[in-house]
């Protein structure tokens, strides 16, 4: 918004002109169903807009990088005055009532520019300080970009704030915003309190075109950058392949943590080509799901052709997200062969053991007979003498009992 950009100097007189210029542009873009700048201008179609966006949640995300005050206005006042173009419309009350029941999210990352020395020694000091300061703040190293991933499910108003503390003069810092590689011209504010520079970018995320990477740049001696990645929620399929057997049935599950997609669709993958799974004959594929955040694909009467990768797509208003599950179908013969091999080995072992025993017994037989005859004679001898019998027997049995 050029009007909002007028932080750097009063532009009030040109405001109505600018607003009129935007009228035509917004009308055209409305027909396309797209708008990046439209919601904040005063238009005859304001009511349409408010009813369209009445259920948007306001999310504000901050990346704080320290900065110096550029204008003399305090922050709150600045925000209000710059917010004025949005709300200084006949339907201001409507807008505020619509926003009053919305949730506000705020995220913050803060970046500090370290005093850079000319030579490499400076880096060392910075690293030392970085380690000390790391305890307080998430990302402090000056050369590392501050990044934040934001998951959006439904259309909402998003407020991205970067906070920057420059080491040198606040006025020398050049602030820009980019979406991807495209430089953003309007819709953002820059102001300062004390020695901290704030910049805020607002965007109404309605569909997938507004998703992506938004970056704020602070140009000092070295350019500092903070990035917000707007993404749809991720879907979890399964990392390990699912193993099933021919004739079995299997349930493939895709779920996401706290999201409510509008719709789920399943595809089977054939290399890089994805073929959708339509309404089946014979009840082979049944798509169901108990809760909105999960989907189940039940496949019955599996055959080896059903092997491969299955993709589940979750459709949100803001885009699509996908997960995948790999299915492996084995034939029953695979473990059965292993089983038969091991069973055969066991039978072989038993045969060897029993044959070995028979063989050794046969060998022992002649000598065994000799031993037994000896024993028999000894016992006969003992027999004849009852007293002697009990003696050696007794001792032997004692040792047996132990």
């Amino acid at each position: 918004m050029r009007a909002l950009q007028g932080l750097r100097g009063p532009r009030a007189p040109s405001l109505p002109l600018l607003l009129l210029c935007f009228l035509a542009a917004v009308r055209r873009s409305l027909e396309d169903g797209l708008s990046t700048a439209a919601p904040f201008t005063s238009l005859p179609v304001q009511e349409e807009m408010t009813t369209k966006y009445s259920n948007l949640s306001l999310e504000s995300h901050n990346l704080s990088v320290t900065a110096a005050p550029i204008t003399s206005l305090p922050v709150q006042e600045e925000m209000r005055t710059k917010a004025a173009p949005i709300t200084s419309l006949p339907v201001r009350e409507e807008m505020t009532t619509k926003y009053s029941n919305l949730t506000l999210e705020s995220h913050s990352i803060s970046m500090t520019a370290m005093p850079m020395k000319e030579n490499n020694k400076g880096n060392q000091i910075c690293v030392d300080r970085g380690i000390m300061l790391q305890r307080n703040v998430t990302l402090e190293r000056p050369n590392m970009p501050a990044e934040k991933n934001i998951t959006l499910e439904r259309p909402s108003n998003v407020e991205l704030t970067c906070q920057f503390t420059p080491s040198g003069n606040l006025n020398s810092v050049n602030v820009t915003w980019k979406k991807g590689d495209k430089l953003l011209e309007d819709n953002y504010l820059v102001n300062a309190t004390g020695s901290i520079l704030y910049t805020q970018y607002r965007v109404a995320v309605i569909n997938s075109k507004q998703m992506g990477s938004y970056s704020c740049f602070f140009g000092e001696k070295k350019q500092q950058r903070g990035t917000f990645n707007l993404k749809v929620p991720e879907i979890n399929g399964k990392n390990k392949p699912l193993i099933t057997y021919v004739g079995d049935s299997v349930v493939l599950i895709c779920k996401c943590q706290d999201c409510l997609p509008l719709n789920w669709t399943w595809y089977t993958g054939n290399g890089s080509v994805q073929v959708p799974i339509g309404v089946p004959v014979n009840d082979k594929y049944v798509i169901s799901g108990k809760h909105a955040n999960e989907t189940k694909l039940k496949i019955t009467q599996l055959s080896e052709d059903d092997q491969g990768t299955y993709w589940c797509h979750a459709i949100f208003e803001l885009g699509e997200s996908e997960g995948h599950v790999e299915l492996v179908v084995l034939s029953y013969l695979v473990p059965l062969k292993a089983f038969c091999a091991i069973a055969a080995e066991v039978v072989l072992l038993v045969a060897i053991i029993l044959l070995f025993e028979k063989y050794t017994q046969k060998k022992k037989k002649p000598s065994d007979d000799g031993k037994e005859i000896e024993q028999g004679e000894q016992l006969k001898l003992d027999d004849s003498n009852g007293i002697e019998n009990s003696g050696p027997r007794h001792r032997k049995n004692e040792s047996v009992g132990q």
Partner: protein
Amino acid sequence: MAYRAEPPDGGWGWMVVLSAFFQSALVFGVLRSFGVFFVEFVAAFEEPAARVSWIASIGIAVQQFGSPVGSVLSTKFGPRPVVMTGGILAALGMLLASFATSLTHLYLSIGLLSGSGWALTFTPTLACLSRYFSRRRSLATGLALTGVGLSSFAFAPLFQWLLNHYAWRGALLLVSALSLHLVACGALLRPLSLAEDPVVGGPGAQITSLLCHGPFLRYTIAITLINTGYFIPYVHLVAHLRDLGWDPLPAAFLLSVAAISDLVGRVASGWLGDAVPGPVARLLMLWTTLTGVILALYPVAEVPTGLVALTVAYGFTSGALTPVAFSVLPELVGTGKIYCGLGLVQMVESIGGLLGAPLSGYLRDVTGNYTASFVVAGAFLLAGSGVLITLPHFFCVSAPTSKPQDLVTEALDTKVPLPEEGLGED
């Protein structure tokens, strides 16, 4: 058939040790590592974990309560056919389980069928082992029981690998094939005829005489008390450590350390049991008292080094008491009645084992931490060791001459003609 006057103490006995080693691995190792399958069953049958864990509980219960059946059958038919049948039953149970469509199916196939298969294998094997050794009995038992510890290390990753490659149905099929090796182990159990066998009579007579045998009953009570306290640390140690603020990975690692010291303890105690003269019951009392004291000290230790030291000591002493526990029995009842004796002891001690863990869990729920559980476990162990003092000839220095031997002597005197008959048969 020639009746040996003495156990061979070696020779084929070492093959029996090998067989017992693999059998304890295949029975208890499989039972302990079965937890890996539970996750798959919970997902496949959509049942809560508590209901799935009943599979292992039923299996263990059937194995222990069925021990007397195994003993009786081995007294009648010898250990070999009984153990081989048990192996086939265990493998059959797992095979049928691979076709399961519901949890009840698994209860019946793994729990009941495999459980009864295991009941027919473990007790007869240990009894057979006791018959093959006299001087080196404790060492042989200790070596054989190391199979349990080593297999728990090996089978858990193996089962996980099987699950990853064949899913649970194929994995159960292959575990069934693995259990078939019990049959091969059974084939190794050559029947041994000892001099006392014809004297002690059939299984019915043995059981009645055992139930009237004072020392045997006292020993059974002692073992039951010991069993009640024995398993508690294994079940609750990790939870206790987590309560104290340990991370799950170091806690699990400490349990592995305990398992290693358990292995060392078994072998060391086995060797010691044979080296020290006099009744083995004294060594059992020593190890049991030490274990009880260590358990009672557990709540006192808060420092990590103290806990590690206590856990290593607990592993060692609890492993040490297992082989001597099995060695005391032949001294009491003689090798002739060992099958039935061991079966009865296993059945009664299982009551202690089944009660111990839930009791400790209940105490924990009531008091809020594991202090009471550990102290009660220690108390049970100390009580068990106290009962052991009442065993005969406990305080004798020389070898005991207990009644069964006198019984044998008298009987042999009257049955002298027997060897002549045996000559004719061969």
